């Protein structure tokens, strides 16, 4: 009987193709929106976001305007619960919300190697330490900008030699370019000798992040520049607050796409069943049970939806994997990465929508008034 469903879909291949295409486009958007959402979630939750603190200049947001003395690091180290302090100079080509943001983080090469959750996929750490203008480029930026090892990469006042490409379990890391701290401090226009944008604090074992944060701000109040210290997740969320609203809105777009697929597949299936309603009367006269007739219709709608959904999801994951898309503002970026979670949710949503969209026409097919339909010419 499965062959009957397949042959029916094939017979109306134009309609099938249009419906599958529509479902694919909608599921493509659904997955894209989903990946943005996932990127944001991973930015504000997880080990990296909860177990490290960001010390920033009070009331400043753009990395260009936060200027803290490097030697604050020593004072912070003295506070109980602090395991490590990484002074970081940040440079970004664009402080506002942008889809092609390039963010440089300058830090001590040893600290980068030991403390950042990154692994080199190309290049070596020794090359990074050997050259003053050496840079390690996150996989996402490299993909987006077509950067390869050995390239000289220039943007604004900065020009670096690419000696490594890295990947990370923390997707936002993959949007960064790491250089040595000194190199970035001496960038023309930054005038940052002795200064850094922020200190990233790694917490010891069971230290309470909020207590440590307030103790840091307290201790540095006497210094030349007052600070605001927050968990990294909270810091990133507040830096991106405008974008967070926007992404929350895009979330609805994702639901709208699901609604769209539902409406599309339901319409096609209703049309298909109504076109062939007499066929269902004949099938039941031959001895097909009402429930079986129902199953035939559900199979039809589910096939349409799953096919379209999987194509759309697959294309979205491919685009996300190859495109290295990211959106960012003020030196913080959200990476759009493909993930197994997206694939699974795309498939499950397609499956459920396929079944749901077939319910009404399935009932129609199962309860067809047999005699009346057989009397139709």
């Amino acid at each position, binding site marked *: 009987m499965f062959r*009957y469903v397949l042959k029916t879909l094939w017979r109306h291949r134009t309609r099938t193709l249009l419906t599958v295409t529509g479902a694919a486009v909608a599921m493509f958007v659904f997955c894209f929106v989903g990946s943005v959402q996932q990127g944001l979630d991973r930015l504000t939750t997880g080990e990296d976001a909860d177990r490290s603190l960001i010390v920033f200049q009070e009331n400043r947001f753009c990395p260009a305007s936060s200027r803290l003395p490097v030697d604050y690091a020593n004072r912070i180290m003295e506070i109980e619960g602090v395991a490590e302090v990484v002074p970081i100079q940040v440079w970004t080509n664009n402080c506002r919300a942008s889809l092609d943001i390039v963010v440089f983080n300058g830090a001590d090469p040893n600290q980068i190697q030991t403390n950042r959750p990154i692994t080199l996929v190309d290049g070596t750490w020794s090359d990074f330490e050997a050259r003053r203008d050496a840079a390690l480029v996150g996989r996402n930026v490299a993909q987006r900008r077509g950067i390869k090892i050995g390239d000289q990469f220039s943007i604004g006042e900065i020009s670096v030699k690419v000696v490594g490409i890295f990947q990370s379990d923390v997707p936002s890391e993959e949007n960064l370019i790491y250089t040595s701290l000194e190199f970035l401090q001496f960038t023309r226009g930054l005038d940052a000798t002795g200064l850094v944008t922020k200190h990233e604090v790694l917490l010891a074992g069971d230290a309470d992040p909020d207590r440590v944060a307030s103790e840091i701000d307290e201790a540095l109040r006497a210094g030349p520049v007052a600070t605001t210290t927050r968990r990294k997740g909270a810091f990133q969320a507040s830096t991106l607050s405008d974008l967070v609203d926007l992404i929350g809105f895009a979330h609805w777009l994702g639901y709208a796409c699901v609604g769209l697929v539902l409406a599309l597949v339901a319409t096609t299936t209703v049309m298909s069943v109504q076109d062939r309603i007499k066929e269902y009367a004949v099938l039941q*006269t*031959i*001895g*097909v*049970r009402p429930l079986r007739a129902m199953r035939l219709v559900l199979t039809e709608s589910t096939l349409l939806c799953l096919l379209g959904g999987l194509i759309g999801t697959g294309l979205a994951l491919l685009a996300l994997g190859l495109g290295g898309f990211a959106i960012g503002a003020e030196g913080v970026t959200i990476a759009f990465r493909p993930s197994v979670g997206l694939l699974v949710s795309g498939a499950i949503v397609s499956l459920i929508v396929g079944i749901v969209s077939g319910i009404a026409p399935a009932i129609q097919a199962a309860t067809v008034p047999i005699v009346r339909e*057989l009397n139709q010419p």
Partner: protein
Amino acid sequence: MALVALNAVTKTFTKGEETITPLDHVDLDIQAGDFVSLMGPSGTGKSTLLNLVSGIDQPDAGTIAVDGVEVTSLSRSQLADWRAANLGYIFQTHNLIPVLTTYENVELPTLLLRLSASERRQRVELALEAVGLTDRASHYPRQLSGGQEQRVGIARAIVAHPKVVVADEPTGSLDKKTSDQIQILLQRLNRELDITLLMVTHDTEVAGIATRRLVLEDGKIVDGLANPV
């Protein structure tokens, strides 16, 4: 015991104010192996009677039993199962599934029964052979003539080895020559395969091939060769 037994079967329809009673306390016994033809003026309720025997319509009163099974007391789902195993239906307009080939159309009823693949293939081949369409097995309905389509319809109705086959004007939409072929085929099915047939027709000649001729008039069945229509 009769294979098909109608007992005081009544069916009424209401159209607005008007009530018509095409079947009014109809009693009828059909024996296994009978070939029964049913004639009568248009609109007297011949199709309605077939639909009741097939269980795709329900009487307002009375009972219908086929081979001891009271079909009037089965649910829609049970009726479907019962039809799959016990009843073949030959339509006037064939009603083949257009996306399926001759073979697949004939195979359809066997998919509803518990049969092994080889048994299934054997039955389909036998049915196709019986109607002389073995060489058209992979053709689609649109590639067949009206008479061939009707033969596929007949093969589909007999493939599951049903106890009763009903036919509603099986030659009604065919030309004389094709109609003759179908008549011969139905007669052979009855004689050689011992299939019990209940056939509605408007054509006295077609009715003539039956072993027992009935006429439906004014809600009642009259036996024998009463007033030709």
